[in-house]
């Protein structure tokens, strides 16, 4: 279980302190899928970075299975099982998709096993394993590779930051079933997804709404989702963009 306790995060913006996260507390119990939603700029990605250790809270604590991990580095948290798929994935010259999945898995994975992760995000694996994770990949392809690396990590807590962005409808349906299937298997593990998509909110155990850095609402899906329908925090599928790159049939 991961617990945030009165977490605040402030940055110095042009010499002025600017609070991006204000006194946020919530729990991510084992075996649950939590979805964080809320308006753009509300602090969702920042919260994910605080959990992964990329940013450190100005005040408050983060706990993992009863241990205070507030001071832990990114590496220590990763090794303790926190996995994080970035909203904006990073490109690397010369590092292949296969290399990245192997690094994520932490062992010398067979090519065929790496392919399983790529297929589950709708990429034709054999076209991609040897591609470099560089500027030649489209945004949607990169995003799916990012998700595949986090799937490969099989983390204690897997965080996906707006996984639907840049992904076509077919792959999105596939992705939902990947998350649902993950949800069935997790038991002692948990999933945190940042999303505005109604279909993703719909598979949540709990929903957290973050607005202007503050916890606006949090609770079981059945309580929170009805209050969100029709707002930008829960968009239906029709908001999807057209497919962009990455054949899904092979």
């Amino acid at each position, binding site marked *: 279980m991961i617990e945030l306790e009165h977490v605040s995060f402030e940055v110095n913006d042009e010499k002025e302190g600017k609070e991006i996260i204000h006194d946020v507390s919530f729990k991510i119990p084992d075996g649950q899928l939590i979805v964080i939603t809320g308006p753009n700029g509300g602090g969702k990605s920042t919260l994910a970075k605080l959990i992964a250790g990329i940013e450190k809270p100005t005040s408050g604590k983060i706990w993992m299975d009863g241990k205070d991990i507030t001071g832990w580095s990114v590496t220590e948290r990763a090794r303790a099982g926190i996995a994080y798929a970035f909203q904006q994935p990073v490109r690397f010259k*010369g590092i292949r998709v296969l290399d990245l999945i192997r690094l994520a898995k932490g062992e010398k994975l067979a090519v065929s096993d790496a392919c399983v992760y790529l297929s589950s995000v709708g990429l034709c694996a054999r076209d991609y394993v040897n591609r470099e994770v560089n500027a030649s990949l489209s945004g949607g392809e990169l995003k799916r590779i990012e998700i595949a690396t986090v799937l490969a990590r099989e983390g204690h807590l897997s965080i996906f930051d707006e996984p639907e962005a840049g992904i076509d409808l077919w792959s999105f349906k596939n992705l939902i079933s990947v998350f649902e299937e993950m949800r069935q298997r997790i038991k002692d593990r948990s999933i945190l997804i940042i999303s505005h998509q109604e279909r993703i909110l719909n598979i949540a155990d709990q929903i957290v709404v973050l607005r202007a850095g503050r916890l606006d609402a949090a609770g079981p899906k059945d309580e929170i989702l009805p209050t969100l329908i029709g707002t930008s925090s829960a968009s239906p599928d029709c908001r999807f963009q057209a497919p962009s790159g990455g054949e899904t049939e092979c």
Partner: protein
Amino acid sequence: MLKLDEMQKKLLEEVADLHAVPEGAYNIRSNGKSIGRSSSAHIHITSKEDGSGIVVQIDPETKKESVHIPVVMTQTGLKEVVYNDFYIGKDADVVIVAGCGIDNCGNQDAQHDGIHRFFVDPGAKVKYVEKHYGSGEGKGKRILNPVTEVFLSENAYMEMEMVQIKGVDDTNRKTVAKLDAGSKLVVRERLMTHDEQNAVSTYDVVMDGAGSSADVVSRSVARDRSFQKFDAKLVGNAECSGHTECDSIIMDEGRILAVPGLEANHVDAALVHEAAIGKIAGEQIIKLMTLGLTESEAEEQIIKGFLN
């Protein structure tokens, strides 16, 4: 039968990926003399009469054959200049593996200056691989100053892969090429300097023939207090296309100087230069740390990929 000591074997592995005597034609030079040589049916290696180097003659139409000409040095204080000439016959398609490994455990400098000239006949294809490597604890420097001259006849093609990753203290590489109509030169240079090392790489590529093209790309990493200079000049004297690129990672107190040079003397010469120097992007390191790597492991992976 060729006898090699452990150090010679190690150096040969580093510079030519050789674990045994190579297949096909070869000449292995160690501490100033040839210690093994073999010609093949279509590739003839002979010594120059004045003893200054070798001549490699590749018959026309020779296909899918290779020639290895590695140099190893393990003697401190040795300084040599070697002049090797390569004649590649019409429509041949061959791989030439050169390279120099120096192990200097003494206190005097060890230096190898290889002057290589390539005369590539019409339609021939050459892949040339040259690796540099240095090792040894001595105070003496390991110095390599290769000069490569390339003459590409009509529709000839040459691809040069130049690699220097470790252990060479001082290098001054000069590459000069002249391209006839329809010929193409591709250069892929990978360089890493560390400690107090110094590496200068100069290209002067002249495209004289219509439809010729050149693509010179260098990827490099400068660490510690090392210095690199990449000076690539392309000259277009006809309808041609040329591209040079210097893509560098700078670390610690390393320094890199990239000097672009493009000279177009014909209205249909299209020449492009790109250069980018910068430290490793912070988000790349963070991404790999979220996969469980430490900061220095992440750096190593990024560099390994970049120089791959």
